[in-house]
């Protein structure tokens, strides 16, 4: 049906030059924007919250840019290409999750906080312990996420550019790390937001282009596209059941454990998004809660539209490229979208194919860079604002000292991410993104919701839900097949796993809520006359006294 080809075998030098040039243009433009934004970054509000000056549409794009990682672009397209409907199922959790952020979190958070998630969690609690906990949880979630992105970046770019060997991959990890440190330290939130906006526009533009080309090939008949995908996916020795390809079960339906695992993953995705620190701090970049609401509305439209297009991308790849070729290029299907771009542009030897491949590869690279910058900003902001300014300096640091601390910690976190990325380069860390969502849902979300809506919640409750949710999710993953006892595990050669699921959400999320409740009712009420809760409640609902 198709000329058999592999990405690495595509006439490498030509498309490599093109990818590198396109990507250099992106890096150059975004660095210029970053420097310009940096010049207009004067105080802490500029650095942490972009001066709260972005519009709903701008922030909606930036939220989408922060959220649509390479995992959701290449990962979901690849999962659909290989597993059909099960890959599609995955994207739905990522979208529905935004309703939690819209209805329960975005507006109260914007009204009651200043710069970080910790601002809201510590609002009516004892500042030092709760801010420490919020900082720890923010950094843990962000580092897991960051590590997955960095290692993924190394492997992916090496694949797209046809680089083999560890030195090449490590150089890419270092390069990505250095650029992200520059974005964050020079541009602060203003610069990083513009990087997200540019990246979101590129990603959406690239996806629309490929989607239209794919659909045109099937005369805009979705049923034909699905039929061709199922037929092609069931061919050959790696072929799968055509029926299941369209109705589900190939990835998660293997046995009762994988089914339960999918329920666990689904819950973690839906409840985790509204607890991701790098997403939460985006709500501070707009002037009012109403603008925060509108930015989430834009984000839902953009992200939803994007995931709808990944259906065309994934099934298109399944229909137009031989399954064996997708798998031999990357076993997880991560290169299905670039392969599709190459095929749809004309295939072997065509300049159209080479150009589209280069465009999609550059977009993927831009995606990774923007997401890691957002994560670095979130974790360094929390370290500087929650831990340095409010715990170490007990609120006595000047704005200037605090922003300097934020820049220093961005460099430190960036350096840690580069080191981990290099040393973890050979490990399979893809599972860490799901873990980041699980920790966010188990530790952060219960604490946010209790803080905003439950009067009896207190410091002990907050510490129990953060540390309890965090510990349960991390320990369960440590003893799951994500880490050991599986060929696809981080350490495939040892086996100390006893927890059957790969995603801990099913246990750790209820545990986080339970810990928060138990910690509160088993300790003395703090706010007996309810004055602090009154202030938080009035502020969070009306916006009175908002920063």
């Amino acid at each position, binding site marked *: 049906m198709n000329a058999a080809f592999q990405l690495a075998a595509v006439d490498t030098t030509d498309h490599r030059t093109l990818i590198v040039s396109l990507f250099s243009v992106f890096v150059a433009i975004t660095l210029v924007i970053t420097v310009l934004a940096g010049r207009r970054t004067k105080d802490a509000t500029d650095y942490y919250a972009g001066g709260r000056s972005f519009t709903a549409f701008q922030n909606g794009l930036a939220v989408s840019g922060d959220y649509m990682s390479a995992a959701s672009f290449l990962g979901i397209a690849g999962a659909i290409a290989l597993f059909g409907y099960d890959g599609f199922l995955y994207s739905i959790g990522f979208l*529905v999750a935004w*309703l939690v952020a819209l209805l329960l979190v975005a507006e109260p958070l914007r009204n009651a906080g200043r710069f970080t998630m910790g601002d809201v969690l510590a609002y009516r609690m004892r500042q030092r312990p709760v801010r420490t906990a919020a900082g720890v949880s923010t950094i843990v979630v962000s580092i897991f996420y960051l590590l997955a992105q960095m290692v993924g970046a190394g492997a992916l770019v090496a694949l797209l550019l046809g680089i083999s060997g560890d030195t090449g991959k490590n150089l890419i990890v270092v390069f990505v790390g250095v650029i992200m440190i520059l974005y964050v330290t020079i541009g602060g939130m203003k610069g990083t937001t513009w990087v997200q906006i540019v990246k979101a526009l590129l990603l959406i533009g690239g996806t629309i282009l490929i989607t239209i080309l794919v659909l045109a090939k099937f005369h805009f008949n979705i049923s034909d596209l699905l039929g061709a995908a*199922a037929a092609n996916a069931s061919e050959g020795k790696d072929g799968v059941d055509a029926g299941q390809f369209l109705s589900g079960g190939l990835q998660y339906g293997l046995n009762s454990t994988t089914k339960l695992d999918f329920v666990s993953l689904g819950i973690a995705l839906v409840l985790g998004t509204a607890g991701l620190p790098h997403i939460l701090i985006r709500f501070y970049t707009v002037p009012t809660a109403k603008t925060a609401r509108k930015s989430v509305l834009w984000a839902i439209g953009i992200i939803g539209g994007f995931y709808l297009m990944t259906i065309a991308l994934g099934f298109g790849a399944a229909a137009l490229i031989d399954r064996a070729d997708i798998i031999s290029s990357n076993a997880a299907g991560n290169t299905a979208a670039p392969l599709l771009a190459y095929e749809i542009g004309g295939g072997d030897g065509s300049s159209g194919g080479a150009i589209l491949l280069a465009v999609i590869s550059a977009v993927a690279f831009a995606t990774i860079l923007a997401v890691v910058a957002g994560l670095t900003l979130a974790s360094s902001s929390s370290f500087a604002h929650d831990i340095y300014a409010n715990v170490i300096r007990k609120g006595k640091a000047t704005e200037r000292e605090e922003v300097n601390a934020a820049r220093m910690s961005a460099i430190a976190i960036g350096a840690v991410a580069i080191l981990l990325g290099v040393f973890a380069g050979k490990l399979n860390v893809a599972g860490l993104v799901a873990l980041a969502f699980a920790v966010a849902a188990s530790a952060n979300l219960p604490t946010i919701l209790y803080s905003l809506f439950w009067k009896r919640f207190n410091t002990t409750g907050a510490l129990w839900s953060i540390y309890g949710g965090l510990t349960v999710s991390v320990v369960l993953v440590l003893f799951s097949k994500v880490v050991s006892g599986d060929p696809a595990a981080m350490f495939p050669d040892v086996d100390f796993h006893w927890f059957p699921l790969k995603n801990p959400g099913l246990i750790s999320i209820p545990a986080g809520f339970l810990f928060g409740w138990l910690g509160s009712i088993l300790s003395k009420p703090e706010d007996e006359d309810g004055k602090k809760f009154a202030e938080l409640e009035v502020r969070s609902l009306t916006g*009175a006294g908002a920063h």
Partner: protein
Amino acid sequence: MSTAPPTPSPPGNGSYVRMQESEDFAELRRRFRTFAFPVTIGFTAWYLLYVLLSNYAGDFMAKKLFGNINVAFVLGLAQFLTTFLIAWWYARHANAKFDPEADRLRAVVEADVEHASEDAR
């Protein structure tokens, strides 16, 4: 208008406490919670139902409706559709039923805080 905070006493927090105890604020909170809480439970349940159907009702999901489009695919697209609709519905509710009253109470409480701190001088 019944319960706009009366005479302000000690600066700061007192204004918030009075506002929180007012009937107007109780009504604002009610408008928020009676929408956000049930709708959150609703869409979470609907999503879980969809996940469970995908997991445990393979035959039903595989039923072809037209061409190669089956129940699974249609329900998946329905999740997108309901997400968009709920977002739109919430925005409409908030614009009409919530924002004007929130803005009014915000002005009341901010004026009261201002007043209280002037009295304290």
